[in-house]
């Protein structure tokens, strides 16, 4: 106390006004009982610091589960944030549109999506029906030539001989002349080989035949066709069949 009085006197000597203003009382206060509890609290702090390095019982057993739960939660938050961004963006651009929301007003009949994949698959397979190339090779045209010429000349000759006549009514005279020459010279093979592809095609077209159909039809019969189901399952079925018959390409 004596020391404090000396300090106050010293202050008054330095500045008489300041010495009178300074109170001897402490203006600060502490909560009631603070100092009583302080040692206990300090001990508690020290013991908890000592516990650094230890973990609660069972901590590691549940750690992986907890981490995965946190990751999932954060992923969900990211998704929510992404959704919020669209809405938040719209709120800033146009609160009136944002208020409407982005609910879909359209509907579909019940069960539509249950059968949709089958419908699409069926439509897909239908469009995948094999496309057969009908480019004509010399081999096919030779076959066609044989079919056309054999039929034509054969019919002429058959009619001539069975009716014992020199001409067949309605038959093109040039064909008749050609038929007679072939018979006289025994030159069927040579005549056949001399026909051009375009001659044969023109002949068939002029007589109302589709050359493509004629080629295929002259080479196959119903019994040799593959099962229709095979076309659907394997797009190569028809190509393979025509290749067998020497009709592909």
């Amino acid at each position, binding site marked *: 106390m004596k020391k404090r009085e000396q300090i106050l006197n010293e202050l008054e000597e330095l500045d008489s006004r300041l010495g009178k203003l300074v109170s001897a009382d402490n203006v600060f206060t502490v909560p009631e009982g603070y100092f009583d509890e302080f040692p206990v609290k300090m001990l508690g702090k020290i013991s908890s610091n000592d516990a650094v390095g230890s973990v609660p019982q069972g901590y590691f057993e549940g750690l992986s589960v907890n981490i995965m739960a946190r990751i999932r939660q954060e992923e969900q938050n990211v998704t929510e944030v992404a959704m919020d961004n669209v809405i938040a963006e*719209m709120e800033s*651009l146009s609160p009136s549109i944002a208020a409407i929301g982005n609910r879909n007003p359209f509907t579909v009949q019940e069960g539509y999506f249950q059968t949709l994949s089958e419908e*699409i698959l069926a439509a897909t397979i239908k469009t995948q029906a094999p496309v057969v190339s009908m480019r004509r090779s010399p081999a096919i045209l030779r076959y066609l030539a044989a079919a056309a010429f054999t039929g034509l000349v054969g019919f002429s000759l058959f009619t001539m001989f069975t009716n014992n006549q020199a001409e067949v009514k309605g038959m093109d005279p040039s064909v008749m002349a050609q038929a007679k020459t072939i018979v006289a010279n025994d030159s069927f093979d040579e005549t056949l080989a001399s026909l051009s592809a375009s001659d044969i095609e023109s002949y068939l077209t002029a007589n109302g035949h589709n050359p493509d159909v004629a080629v295929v039809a002259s080479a196959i019969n119903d019994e040799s066709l593959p099962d229709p189901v095979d076309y659907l399952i394997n797009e190569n079925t028809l190509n393979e069949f025509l290749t067998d018959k020497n009709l592909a390409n």
Partner: protein
Amino acid sequence: MAENLDDNELLLQFKNEATRERAYTAIIKKYQERLYWHVRRMVVGHEDANDVLQNMFIKVWKNLDKFREDSQLYTWMYRIATNESLTFLEKAKKRQSISIDDDESPIMNKLESDTEYDGNKVEWKLQQAIQRLPDKQKAVFNLRYFEEMPYEEMSRVLETSEGALKASYHHAVKKIEDFILNN
């Protein structure tokens, strides 16, 4: 369930002749709903949406072998679906020779003939406004607002820069807002 497989696995199965159809069925099942709704919002009518969706999946089947795996299957399919929808709308406009801005346009007729249509409800009012947008802007708005697609992904689907898409979206919003506030 095959449709739960990731896209890379499905693509691998598609390349194998023995598992091709099964993988393709799984791809359809996985994406059909999302793509349907995207197409439906574009073309409005269910039958048209069904046709466009089937054409789109046929194109996917024909071109999946050539699909470059540096982009996502989902993004690639969205691109095809969007292009098919835009082509459909273009053809429909040429066929009808009627402007899309016209109230009597086929798309507006389709909207108003929807069994659920109620012109007094704001969500249908919003659809009326959307259908008045130019087709590509409509795709931008739908992908962003209804599909909640990030601009980065939209950029890959629509093959347009992100900046251009943001500008287009903002313009679309202003047009829609004008329509809603004035009708």
